[in-house]
């Protein structure tokens, strides 16, 4: 599909002179749910209408299914997810000592799956990984994002911010130009949201399925005609980390529905 290119290409002629973005004042930060249509919001807020809930239910089944050489289910080690996984999604991406870098929730689930459950890790964006992630994230619904700027995470948050504020791609745009400086304004009939990733994994109407924050960020990058980082690339996780830290305090809404 060429439509992404068409929209963003229109920006080339208008690319403004470089200027540093200003952070959104803390008390003005809002969930991106407030920037979608009332119909899309209603679809998200009614569990019987939200297709993301189908992934949550699949995740629940997987949570209770024995797998791998350990022949254990997630539940065998972690117990009831409603208790054991409550609040977990509010602190991801988290620093993983094994790798010396932050990993996101998908990567953490895969880490536990390969090292603890001793089963083959799931592929990025696979149905099973998204389902488990949706199920785990769902246990934090309504809880505020609790990411802390620890000494270990700080350099990665800074890197994420730098990527967010850097102009990139053939269109020479930065994420911040739209999401820090122009949120709430209408762009071709579309409200520009703040890019607060409160609802991931999301059910996106455009995808007609559930997808991860990494997938969403890759969409934005290709829209800007910048090379999208590979799934799992450190830069992508840093971007996720910065966005989650930037959204700290806002409640988790997974699985959200987005256009």
């Amino acid at each position: 599909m060429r439509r992404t290119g068409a929209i963003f290409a229109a920006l080339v002629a208008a690319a403004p002179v470089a200027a540093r973005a200003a952070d959104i004042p803390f008390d003005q930060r809002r969930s991106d749910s407030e920037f979608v249509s009332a119909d899309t919001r209603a679809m998200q807020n009614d569990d019987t209408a939200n297709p993301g809930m189908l992934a949550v239910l699949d995740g629940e089944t997987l949570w209770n299914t024995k797998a791998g050489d350990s022949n254990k289910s997630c539940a065998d080690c972690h117990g009831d997810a409603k208790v054991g996984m409550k609040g977990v999604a509010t602190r991801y991406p988290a620093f993983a000592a094994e790798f010396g870098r932050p990993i996101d929730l998908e990567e953490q689930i895969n880490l536990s799956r390969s090292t603890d459950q001793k089963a083959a890790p799931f592929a990025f964006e696979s149905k099973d990984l998204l389902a488990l992630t949706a199920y785990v994230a769902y246990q934090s619904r309504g809880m505020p994002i609790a990411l802390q700027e620890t000494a270990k995470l700080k350099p990665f948050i800074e890197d994420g911010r730098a990527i967010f504020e850097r102009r990139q791609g053939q269109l020479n745009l930065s994420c911040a130009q739209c999401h820090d400086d122009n949120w709430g304004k209408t762009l071709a009939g579309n409200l520009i949201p703040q890019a607060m990733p409160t609802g991931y994994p999301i059910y996106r109407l455009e995808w007609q399925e559930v997808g991860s924050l990494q997938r969403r960020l890759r969409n934005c990058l290709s829209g800007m005609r910048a090379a999208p980082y590979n799934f799992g690339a450190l830069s992508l996780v840093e971007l996720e980390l910065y966005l989650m830290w930037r959204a700290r305090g806002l409640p988790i809404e997974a699985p959200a529905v987005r256009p």
Partner: protein
Amino acid sequence: MARSRRSRREILQIAGALVGSGMALRLSIRPARATPEMMQDAVRAAIGEAAVKKGRVKLDLPPIVENGNSVPCTVSVESPMTATDYVKAIHVFNEKNPQPNVISVKLGPRAGRAAFSTRIRLADSQTITAIAEMADGTCWSDDIDVIVTLAACIEESIH
């Protein structure tokens, strides 16, 4: 870190460029136009030769569609839904998706209320028509024109 707000002129440039690209993401409702032949054929296949009158049916689509992949659609029909006076069937048609039929539902007096909702795909701006068949054989309809355009920030290829 020295930070400054982007100038108003720059904002207008960004917005103006996007609007100028003609990719407005709005759906608006206008009075209906004549419908193409394929849709007429599908209507005849569903209800036969019965005359279709305007009224009693209400077709609801949102004023702004964010994505044509999933558009909430509700049809409700004025009917007492008694054992003798009820809605037998409701059909929804579109004129421009590759196929004219969207959905056909069958119901009866036990429904209590002659209404249903679903989510439909709208590939393009077009006329959507809903026709209700009553127990007495009469047919009633409603139609609206919808305008669908495109979203920003999406994938280059289909997954």
